[in-house]
């Protein structure tokens, strides 16, 4: 691959999905993770709904201050958990996000960890309210 970022990364960077915030509430979890390595910050908001007694991600929003990889992973990771059961969202791995983006440059792989960590932190925040 000759270009630095895959077409998919660039597409998500240019048209990031789920940007924004969700107002605080009992059914909302918020997770913010700062990357001490590069200075990127990611904040994920999840709104939890119930379907057949199973908690799921009814809505998700993200705010990101960071590079192309950070913005693209925020976008892709939120797309991947939207509508999914909470238990499944919690299991989202860095590797899955990287693969969904058709790869990330080696030096940028830590950015994908940020998204997975922010999602976990948001779920934990929500669970703390139950």
């Amino acid at each position, binding site marked *: 691959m000759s270009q630095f970022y895959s077409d998919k990364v660039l597409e998500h960077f240019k048209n990031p999905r789920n940007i924004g915030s969700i107002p605080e509430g009992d059914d909302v979890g918020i997770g913010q993770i700062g990357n001490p*390595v590069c*200075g990127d*910050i990611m904040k994920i908001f999840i709104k939890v709904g119930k379907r057949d007694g199973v908690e799921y991600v009814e809505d998700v929003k993200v*705010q990101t201050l*960071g590079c192309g*990889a950070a*913005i693209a992973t925020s976008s892709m990771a939120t797309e991947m958990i939207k509508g999914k059961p909470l238990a499944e969202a919690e299991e989202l791995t860095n590797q899955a996000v990287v693969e969904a983006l058709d790869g990330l440059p080696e030096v940028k792989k830590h950015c994908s960890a940020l998204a997975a960590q922010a999602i976990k932190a948001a779920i934990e925040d929500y669970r703390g309210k139950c």
Partner: protein
Amino acid sequence: MNCAITNTMKVYLDYAATSPLDPQVLEAMLPYFKEKFGNASSIHSWGQEAREAVDEARETAANFLNCGTQEIIFTSCATESNNLALKGVTESTGKVPHLIVSPIEHHCVLDAAKHLEETGAAEVTWLPVDQYGLVDPGDVEKSIKENTILASVMFVNNEVGTVEPIAEIGRMLKKEPKVYFHTDAVQAIQYLDCDVQELGVDLLSMSAHKFYGPKGVGALYIKKGTSITRQQDGGGQEHGMRAGTENVAGIVGLGRAIELVVNSQSQTVNRVRNLRDRLIGGVLQIPDVKLTGHSEKRAPHIASFMVAGAEGESILLMLNEEGIAGSSGSACTSGILEPSHVLTAMGISPELSHGSLRLSLGKQTTEDEIDYVLEKLPPIIEGLRKMAPK
């Protein structure tokens, strides 16, 4: 150099990274790839033709720097010139010498000095710089020790454009004949007076591709009498200071590029400076954007900023979408995930250098291009800030 592709202009504002080859330089080089292909060390006419061309370029470089032709060594790039300067001077002394180095040097000077330090070949004092990236000549003087052999301070900082007080340091070091003075003048050649007598330097590095010459060729001025050991062994080329068959076409290109600088310097400097000031004035209209580097002691072609609340690489990617080329010192763009050592040395926090943006102009830059950037940049920054956590 704006060409219309649909509605997008192409605006190259990364001249501090590299510049396009001037067609006149290419024209001068071409015969030395083809019919004039001789090895400058050969005795026959092919070789002598190449030798003459190399000698002519050496004379051009020597006239430009106001030195003797014996004092010019052609190299492969400024990185090689800088490595040769620091390592060559260090190696030429018997005991462990002391070097004084500014912390805002290009990586090739910085890492050469660190290498010497880490391998125990030299002691290094790292100079402080102020918030503008300026070295205080007094600090250089205070750092001199019994075993000091070299001070290295760049002429123009490549990231923020600050012009260092080289002539002042040079004058001060005249009182210290055992301390050689090296300057990396890569960003200065086009725009500043590089007379080595005026500057008081013993070693000066340059690279052709920064001033419309080809990549792969540079030069090092080494003042006559300087004690220095060559770093590349082999043949006796370059007065025995740099072995290896001369890059004849490249050297011809470097010579021609210097001629073009000499012919156009006075007009280019003012024109580029005015455009840079137009750019800086416009960019500073955007809220929470600050200029980095000195506002006056600044090379004509470099505009550099800190943008709060937006990350440098993202700004570059968005600019690229609009056909605009720039660069950044943010950790995310560094490849080593560290914020720019230059901005850090200037006391700028990693959070702020996260939003670093450098736009560097060249002789082809136009007012239309600057206005186009001033139209495109504010919404890009606004958009990225909207995405960021509040």
